[in-house]
């Protein structure tokens, strides 16, 4: 019998790999669950004075070090993200570009969403680092998932407006007072953001 966390994580794991294939065509990615490792507690032992092997090092040491080398107190339990864009070798997430990092973060958020949707999502300028092609890939996902949750997307970019069912235009008037007008947008049968194949 699996915990609710494990069920959710398993579903998120499958979703994540699929979403990375959509957002990084030709690329691949996965989520990995790092198991908690026993804490390495230095234990005074009767070791030879010139021995320099750490006294309390179980086999899992390497993984605990990898999990969080900066924090020896970390028990290493956590979710690791691995992504390899097309044609590149797998490497540290931190080396990814600004746009690539945004895509990875969005893939993670959506993979959890698909496993356990919240009723609504508010995304404020999440596409700021994305180029036009990646904005389109992101918006395709928003359109695709909009039957399962409500999405409120805040943006200053025109391209993102095309994904809306309803548009809210905000302006700042005198006195520093914001004013909002809304308009429902007709969505055509042929939606440039929605691929004709069943998504």
């Amino acid at each position: 019998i699996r915990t609710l966390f494990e069920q959710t994580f398993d579903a998120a794991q499958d979703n994540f790999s699929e979403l990375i294939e959509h957002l990084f065509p030709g690329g691949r990615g996965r989520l990995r669950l790092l198991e908690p490792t026993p804490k390495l507690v230095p234990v005074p032992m009767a070791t030879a004075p010139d021995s320099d092997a750490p006294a309390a090092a179980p086999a899992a040491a390497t993984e605990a070090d990898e999990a969080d080398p900066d924090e020896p107190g970390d028990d290493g339990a956590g979710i690791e993200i691995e992504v390899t864009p097309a044609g590149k070798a797998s490497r540290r997430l931190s080396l990814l570009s600004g746009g690539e990092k945004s895509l990875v973060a969005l893939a993670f958020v959506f993979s959890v969403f698909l496993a356990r949707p919240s009723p609504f999502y508010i995304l404020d300028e999440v596409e700021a680092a994305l180029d036009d092609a990646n904005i389109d890939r992101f918006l395709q996902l928003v359109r695709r998932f909009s039957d399962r949750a409500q999405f409120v997307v805040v943006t200053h970019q025109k391209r993102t407006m095309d994904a809306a069912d309803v548009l809210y235009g905000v302006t700042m008037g005198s006195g520093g007072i914001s004013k909002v007008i809304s308009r429902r947008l007709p969505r055509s049968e042929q939606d440039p953001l929605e691929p004709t194949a069943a998504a």
Partner: protein
Amino acid sequence: MHLKSISIKGFKSFPDRMNLVFSPGVSVIVGPNGCGKSNITDAVLWALGEQSPTTVRGSTMQDVIYNGGAGQKPRREAEVEVVLDATGSAAAEQFAEISIRRTLDRDGHGSYHLNGARCRLADVIETLADANLGGDMHSVIGQGKVESIVLSKPRERRLLVEEAA
């Protein structure tokens, strides 16, 4: 369940009552820099119980009260009400709608109301948890915050999934 409407008064750049109605599907909020878009995001976060002023860009929580402008006096109180449409949701045993309202005045006195009845923050948090809107509001990604998911520690991401689960 979805966000049905939000009513903002005295909060940030909305000194007078402003009602916004939302529909299911995709809503896009657009406008030039500084016009008030993220203030709407902050209003939702705040009404749903945000405890840290810095999350809504203030240094004290009273910073969210409309502070005046050309020809306008500051307001003495901020109020935001969020109405969730709960039809078809497990949380909707009694109500088709769930209304959460929060207020705060210049002296730092505030209140929460659930469906018009005064309540505590804990009651709001419990109601949201039933609606699968977790304590950390992981379903709201604030401006400039998207990359933090990638830079965060593995343990923090686990918490995100545990909360959703």
